[in-house]
């Protein structure tokens, strides 16, 4: 009996350590899931490691990590959450880096409308969807953009807030809002014929939407490799094709 236990124990330990060695578990902000999937595929092809992606909102992933979720790498949609993890000692010191800069776009689902910026300035629309500024960096950037355009007073009554930039997009896609500030990456992810009309917001109208990554598990060397892989040309090419700017 005792021996049987011991065998089982050994087997488990070996099985686990073998799996951890080659697997990289990545907690990833939902908006970055599609490019990350391609980057992960490229990484797997180059190294032979396996990447397991778990998508969620940055806030939820952060909450999970603080209570011990077993991610090796955290690709957030902001700078704040990775920094907070560092401060709590839950991330590997010095590992935080910006892996991509989000690009904000003003989107109109309809090709028949005036150019989105004109449409916005004309004030001939009912609803403008943005992500809740407190919840999403794209929401904050949208708010800043409106201030920079001196439109913040005219839009107050027309603003509707999505819980995330994805929801802001769905408000526009379903016709419940005519315009929305969303991520360029979301538009690029659509098939060409469904991209409607969009205006890419110049970077100087808002503070950069830095998406930071942080290493959570120092003992997983494959994870560190994955983090480094993000700044190789193979990865950055994918990022720009999806509508991100590079740091």
């Amino acid at each position, binding site marked *: 009996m005792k021996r049987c236990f011991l065998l089982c124990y050994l087997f488990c330990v070996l099985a686990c350590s073998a799996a951890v060695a080659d697997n990289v578990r990545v907690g990833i902000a939902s908006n970055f899931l599609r490019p990350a999937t391609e980057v992960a595929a490229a990484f797997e092809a180059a190294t032979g490691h396996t990447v397991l992606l778990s998508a969620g*909102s940055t*806030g*939820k992933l*952060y*909450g999970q990590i603080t209570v011990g979720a077993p991610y090796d790498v955290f690709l957030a949609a902001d700078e704040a959450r990775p920094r*907070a993890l560092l401060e709590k000692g839950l991330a590997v010191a010095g590992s935080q880096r910006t892996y991509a800069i989000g690009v904000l776009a003003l989107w109109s689902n309809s090709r028949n409308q005036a150019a989105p910026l004109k449409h916005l300035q004309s004030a001939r629309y*009912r*609803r403008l*969807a943005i992500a*809740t500024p*407190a*919840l999403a960096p794209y929401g904050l950037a949208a708010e800043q953009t409106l201030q920079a355009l001196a439109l913040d007073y005219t839009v107050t009554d027309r*603003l*509707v*807030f*999505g*819980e995330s930039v994805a*929801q802001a997009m*769905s*408000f526009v896609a*379903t*016709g*419940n*809002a005519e315009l929305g500030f969303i991520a360029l990456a979301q538009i690029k992810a659509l098939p060409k014929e469904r991209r409607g009309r969009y205006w890419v917001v110049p970077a100087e109208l808002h503070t950069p939407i830095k998406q930071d990554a942080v290493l959570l598990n120092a003992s997983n060397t494959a994870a560190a490799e994955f983090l480094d892989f993000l700044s190789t040309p193979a990865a950055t090419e994918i990022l720009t094709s999806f509508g991100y700017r590079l740091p």
Partner: protein
Amino acid sequence: MSGPDVSALLLTGWLALVTTALLLLIGTPLAWWLAQTRSRWRPAIEAIVALPLVLPPTVLGFYLLLLFNPSAPLGAAWLSVTGDTLTFSFAGLVVASCIYSLPFMVQPLTSAFMALSRGPVEAAASLRASPIDTFFSVVVPLSKRGFLTAAVLSFAHTLGEFGVVLMVGGNLPERTRVVSIAIYEHVETLAYGQAHTLSLILVLISFVVLTIVYATNRMQAVRVG
């Protein structure tokens, strides 16, 4: 507690009240029909009423987004009548909540009506009471407990509504920003203190309200049995 949180609480309470009142109006005749009918459509109607119990709120929210949008017939009709859209409005939340909490009104009422033997109803008819008269002077008083349970559950369930509101509400302060959304926002922004305050208030209200239901049910059971 901050101003926005207080207004979220008040808004939620008001939403639950309006929804419960409307559901009493809609759910009562529906439940009565379900309890009485021998129609072969009954199982289908019952299933439709129960759908919100099993469907994820996202399904409901998704279809409501499609229905409510100003270019869809319903959304357009509403817009032309009221001048406001159904999405991102309190009225839209009320409609969504009514659908979402419908089974919580209809099911307790239906079982209360079905538990009534036909005796009192037939006795009333034999005493020349019309069906409507019978309903209000016999069925309603004899189903008091069912009405209380249904109203309280609908109210409590609407208080806790999240997914649908999130999808069609647009998180507008004092219009569609209900407590559950406020809590979600606090949690997401790591404002756990405020999240606790609101959450505990919800827990407390729900607990009190459910205790009232169970206590009343028990009292009734003791009195009858």
